């Protein structure tokens, strides 16, 4: 049967249990999420964002995430591009103030097209940051990170339970689909309208199961002695074994503080000096030169 490579189930798929990401504390990984997926907001210069995308892809590769999982997002990248550039082409705004480019039998306007490009790079950079996080973290990691940051127990519990229940509903969803196939449903031969109808068949059982589950889980929580405040009765404190299991070491603090600091620095620089403005982009200079030469 060969060596079975055991993988950990993350929110978006599987990652080998020995992925180097697991050498870092969940808090550090959450800091990475903030850095990669919020920083681009303050960066207009497309080169920087493209660089961040490359870094993220590099991290995905380094973290041994299966590339099939990432490839699922390819169609999305294309449709988002079509949408953004399409809008810029069809509705460019006040044409008289813009620079026209005539090409392949149509008139484009430089400014909206360039702006679409800038926004697209920023959006994709932010998305890849989130994809990286969800591909390499389990629900438990999010829970540990929240607890280590001192988030109130009830909040961290709701966050973790909602991620977990999303996982359960995905499983339910798969089973329902299997059950439909078992009764002769052929997904490939369905029209769009019929596919839309399918959602109804998924949603009703999903909600009914959710109702049952809410009752069951709240009974189970009561049975395990959980109170809304999270405090055991008769004084005393709720203990936190999980957090004690994942001590945040000096290196983890350094990584987390470094990433959040880098984020803050970029944000500050962007607002005060405009160093990440798209007007400073070398690529823009090249394109503007090409447009002028025509």
């Amino acid at each position, binding site marked *: 049967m060969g060596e079975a490579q055991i993988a950990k189930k993350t929110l978006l798929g599987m990652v080998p249990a020995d992925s180097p990401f697991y050498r870092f504390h969940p808090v550090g990984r959450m800091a990475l999420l903030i850095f990669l997926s919020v920083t681009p907001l303050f960066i207009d210069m497309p080169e920087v964002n493209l660089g961040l995308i490359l870094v993220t892809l590099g991290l995905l590769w380094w973290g041994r995430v299966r590339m099939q999982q990432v490839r699922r997002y390819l169609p999305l990248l294309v449709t988002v591009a079509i949408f953004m550039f399409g809008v810029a082409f069809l509705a460019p705004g006040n044409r008289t103030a813009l620079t026209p480019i005539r090409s392949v039998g149509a008139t484009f306007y430089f400014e909206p097209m360039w702006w679409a490009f800038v926004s697209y790079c920023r959006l994709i950079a932010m998305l890849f940051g989130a994809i990286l996080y969800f591909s390499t973290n389990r629900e438990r990691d999010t829970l540990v990170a929240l607890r280590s940051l001192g988030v109130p127990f009830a909040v961290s519990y709701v966050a973790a339970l909602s991620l977990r229940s999303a996982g359960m509903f995905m499983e339910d969803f798969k089973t329902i689909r299997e059950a439909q196939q078992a009764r002769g449903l052929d997904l490939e031969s369905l029209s769009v309208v019929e596919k839309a109808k399918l959602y109804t068949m998924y949603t009703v059982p999903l909600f009914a199961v959710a109702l049952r589950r809410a009752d*069951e889980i709240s*009974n*189970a929580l009561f049975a395990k002695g959980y109170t809304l405040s999270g405090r055991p009765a008769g004084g005393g404190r709720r203990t936190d074994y999980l957090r004690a299991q994942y001590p945040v070491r000096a290196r983890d603090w350094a990584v987390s503080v470094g990433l959040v600091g880098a984020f803050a620095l970029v944000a500050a620089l962007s607002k005060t000096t405009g160093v990440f403005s798209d007007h400073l982009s070398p690529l823009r200079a090249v394109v503007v030169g090409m447009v002028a030469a025509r």
Partner: protein
Amino acid sequence: MRLAVEVERFSWRCPFAQRDALREVSLAIPAGEFTLVVGPNEAGKTTLMLAIKGIIPHSLAGRHDGTVRVFGEPVAQKNAAVLARQVGYVFGDPDAQFTALTVEEEILFGLENVGVPTSEIGARIRRASELTMISDLLDKPPYDISGGEKQRVAIASVLAMDPEILILDEPTSMIDPLGKDLIVDICGSLKRDRRMTVIVVEHNVEAFAPLADRVVLVRDGRIEREGAPRTFFDDVESLIDCGVYPPQVTQVFARLQRRGLYAGPLPLTDEEGVAAGTRLLQGAGRWR
């Protein structure tokens, strides 16, 4: 004798229900006793257990009458954390009881809730998971393992809390036969070594009857019959009518008794049955 559980004329009705799920039920269970609860589905077995655990009336809305006491104090006046230390509850549906993301968290969740110090939690997890043979599952999500494993995880998470009373609602419904033996052995050792008060609701009577000090039949929201296992199963046919399947060995000898081939107490275990049968066949001069 110290009573662990006293149920006094307890009635219960769910909202929107047409009739009471429990009707003036009374039951007293001494500390350290092993009780087996049997009866058809929807007869009120689980409802009775929920009332002892205090989920009724704390966590389920409805109308109730009468009182349930645990160690002399009404459960309605105890809060969740106190009850969690006194009464452990393993739910019937293994999917219905998980509250955490991994098996390990499942076990430690209750321990954190009642404030067990972190230094002690590791040892408790280890002990409970070794006892139920789930040590290799600690890192997995509880919804990603097989039904039988789920049931063992549920039992481990309750055992780790070290309760004085343990309620198990159909703990072996999804477990393979030898896995069932493991659960039965655990229950046996809890009774023997830890003097724990154990209440088991089961359709699989064969495995638990030999351990039980007393068997209780719940039917139609009432306790219809109650007694020591040796006498409880005497009337095999009427039990089968109630949806209860007595141990096969007991059935065999009850039938032989009626045919006039056997006289004596009805056996409950393999060993007793083998011995009784051997005597019977030897008596008939048939043992070669």
